[in-house]
């Protein structure tokens, strides 16, 4: 079983990559173009953190019965961000997709509804993922806006 992460060159992704000793999926692999190539990297039962925003819904659909997934979502899905309407819409669709697919998926999924403050609390996010690994029936963790 291998731990993978998409988008790990900086910030939270970089921290989680180190914390969980992940294999990175970064450029030159293009998550929006090399989808088949990326999916082929993973084997049955691997754990994949879908941290990069690119094509998250597509990856969730393709990997739901092959890997355990951690999906980085956003509070923008429910608290609409007028400055980033497309981002909010995509995160809302992502949240609904994970919610629906988790009803049937072979492997557990964790959706993290991040806020701007929780996004910076790398340790707490890592603890949340570790908690899910120990308690895989938790499918959603949402964080407070006010910190």
């Amino acid at each position, binding site marked *: 079983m291998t731990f993978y992460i998409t988008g790990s060159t900086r910030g939270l992704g970089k921290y989680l990559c180190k914390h969980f000793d992940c294999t990175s999926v970064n450029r030159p692999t293009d998550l929006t173009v090399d989808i088949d190539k990326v999916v082929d990297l993973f084997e049955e039962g691997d754990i994949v953190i879908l941290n990069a925003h690119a094509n998250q819904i597509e990856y969730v659909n393709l990997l739901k019965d092959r890997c355990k997934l951690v999906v980085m979502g956003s509070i923008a899905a*429910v608290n609409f961000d007028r400055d980033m309407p497309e981002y909010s819409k995509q995160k809302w669709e992502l949240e609904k997709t994970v919610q629906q697919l988790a009803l049937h998926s072979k492997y557990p999924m964790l959706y993290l509804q991040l806020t701007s403050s929780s996004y910076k609390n790398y340790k707490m996010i890592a603890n*949340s993922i570790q908690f899910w690994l120990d308690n895989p029936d*938790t499918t*959603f963790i949402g*964080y*407070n806006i*006010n910190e």
Partner: protein
Amino acid sequence: MSNKIVITGHTSGIGKAIYDKFTEVSCREIVGMSRSTGYDIEKDFDKVVEEAAGAEIFINNAYRDSQQLKLFHALKDKVDMMVVMGSVSRHYPELIPTDYVYDKQALAEACRLESINPNGIPVLHLDLSFIENTTIDETDPTAFTSDYNTSLEDIVDTIIFWAGKPSIRQVEFRWKLTEHVMNEFKRINPNLDPSRIKI
């Protein structure tokens, strides 16, 4: 505030599991409030509020119509932290069109609003799924069972995990739409539109 943890509905199910575990591992005073011990959250509402006020953690577990929501509002400024037992069924009012689901929707929204209130207390809203060892009310035509259940231990562990990281506001547990559950939906809702869900 005192060092007490108060839990409603502590004599059975998840409430009992939490009460027993906290009594075992916590150095705080654990106070259980249930109908059988003279704390009916409807008839004895004022007494429950009065005695729960000042708690370090109030675990709003017992469900009775809108009483759980009333307790939330009555105590959110009188306790340090609160755990609220919700239900994943709130996401599926079309599948389970019952007052229970609408009550849980209202409860979830109240918790969400508290989480964006700058002066709000830490609240953990748990969207519970089917829970192991739960007996259903045979007289309730809308009650149903699942063959995929969350362990009581997982739920207790989640509360303990949150207590150390109160910046988490919501945790949802997995439920699976198995053939058994699908058949249960059809039983309680004969007019169910199967295109609404896939199995």
